[in-house]
């Protein structure tokens, strides 16, 4: 599996998948729907799949002396690594916004989502939606990328919309606080972690089964 992961990173990956991690810096943007940064990180991963189809990477991988299901595992490992680097960066920037930059003028009045635990929980949900819609959708055919990506775009932006709307509802203002002591925010983060782990595992298992069945 380690060798296949190296292959993913050195041969299959589009450089854009790495560059688009920098969209995590959107965490710092004031007055902007910062969850869109998570969408762009997923868009970067999508470019790798566009390239993989062009390179006929799946056939090349399936012909290597490996177990076929390890191809799927390595592809998920690559996606998880990109998402986790982005998540850790976003978490660091969130801590900065909640501490050193908490009094910064640009953040004091913000109609949009603040960088806090609620944001991090929703960021994981955006990644979970990508792994469910795009990754699982791709491995149904191992060549079709358009339809699963469009489904992810629709679901992802709906989720971002819900995230941006929630803290405007009466009684839900705490979701946007930057004090760092909100229990409800911690709950959303925990919920995001659980959903990300569970959905990614379900998606990977389903992709392994589908990949064994399809004709290349």
């Amino acid at each position: 599996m380690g060798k296949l992961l190296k292959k993913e990173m050195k041969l299959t990956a589009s450089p854009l998948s790495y560059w688009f991690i920098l969209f995590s810096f959107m965490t710092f943007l004031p007055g902007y729907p910062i969850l869109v940064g998570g969408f762009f990180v997923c868009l970067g991963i999508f470019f790798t799949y566009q390239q993989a189809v062009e390179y006929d990477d799946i056939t090349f991988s399936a012909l290597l002396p490996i177990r076929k299901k390890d191809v799927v595992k390595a592809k998920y490992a690559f996606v998880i690594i990109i998402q986790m680097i982005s998540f850790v960066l976003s978490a660091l920037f969130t801590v900065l916004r909640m501490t050193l930059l908490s009094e910064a003028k640009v953040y004091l009045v913000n109609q949009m989502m603040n960088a806090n635990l609620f944001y991090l929980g929703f960021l994981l949900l955006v990644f979970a939606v990508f792994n469910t819609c795009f990754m699982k959708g791709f491995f149904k055919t191992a060549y079709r990328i358009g339809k699963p990506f469009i489904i992810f775009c629709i679901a992802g932006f709906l989720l971002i919309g819900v995230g941006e709307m929630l803290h405007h509802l009466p009684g839900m203002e705490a979701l946007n606080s930057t004090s760092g002591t909100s229990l409800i925010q911690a709950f959303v983060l925990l919920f995001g972690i659980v959903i990300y782990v569970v959905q990614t595992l379900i998606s990977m298992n389903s992709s392994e089964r589908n990949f064994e069945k399809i004709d290349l």
Partner: protein
Amino acid sequence: MESVLEVKGLSKKYPSFELKSVGFHVDPGMVMGFVGRNGAGKTTTLKSILNLVHPDAGSVRVFGLDFMENEDVIKQQIGYAVGGVSYYNRKRICDIVAVTKMFYENWDDSEYKHYLNAFKLDENKKLKELSSGMKVKFYLTLALSHHAKLLILDEPTSGLDPVSREEITDIFTKLAQKGVAILFSTHITSDLDRCADSITYIKNGELMFSGNKSEFIRSYTESMGKVPSLEEIMVFIEKEEVVL
């Protein structure tokens, strides 16, 4: 002598095409031409052998081992290439090799250098910068550098100019002399004249013949009233009247 590849009763049904119980065997040092028209089922058969396509029935044994049960072990000793396909088009040869070699226990750098020189391949070139003929040579280099004993090649000479085709078929003959077994699909009969020892002929998914090349020619000598060339046999078998 044990066969390197033994295919029995390979079947696969698609809505508009059926591969019907195809079977043949390839021995060490044998060059087998797998012949048929476009759409006859050559690629489906080769992909079924390699488990890229899942056959509905049949068995594949390589080096005496069942392919399905020993896939990773067997793939250590085989090479596969498709004419006209470019894996990792924008990557340099040396980068593709650096990754590919990690997977093969028997990877031999001196063999790799040997074939690189023999085929005049520049490892700093990107794959897209290679001609179709050079790409086939690169895939052969990859296979031979891990001491593949069986090469499965899908239309390796299609789209190549006559000189490159002759070069590739000469390489096949020399590799067979070293004991490498080669199964290659083609519809270009002149390639078979040059290098094939045996022929497996497939028509509309059905096996018509598998055996020695001279036997194949002999079997059509009486019905055609002369000693036919492979091209004449193919036209004799396949020609259909076009009603306009």
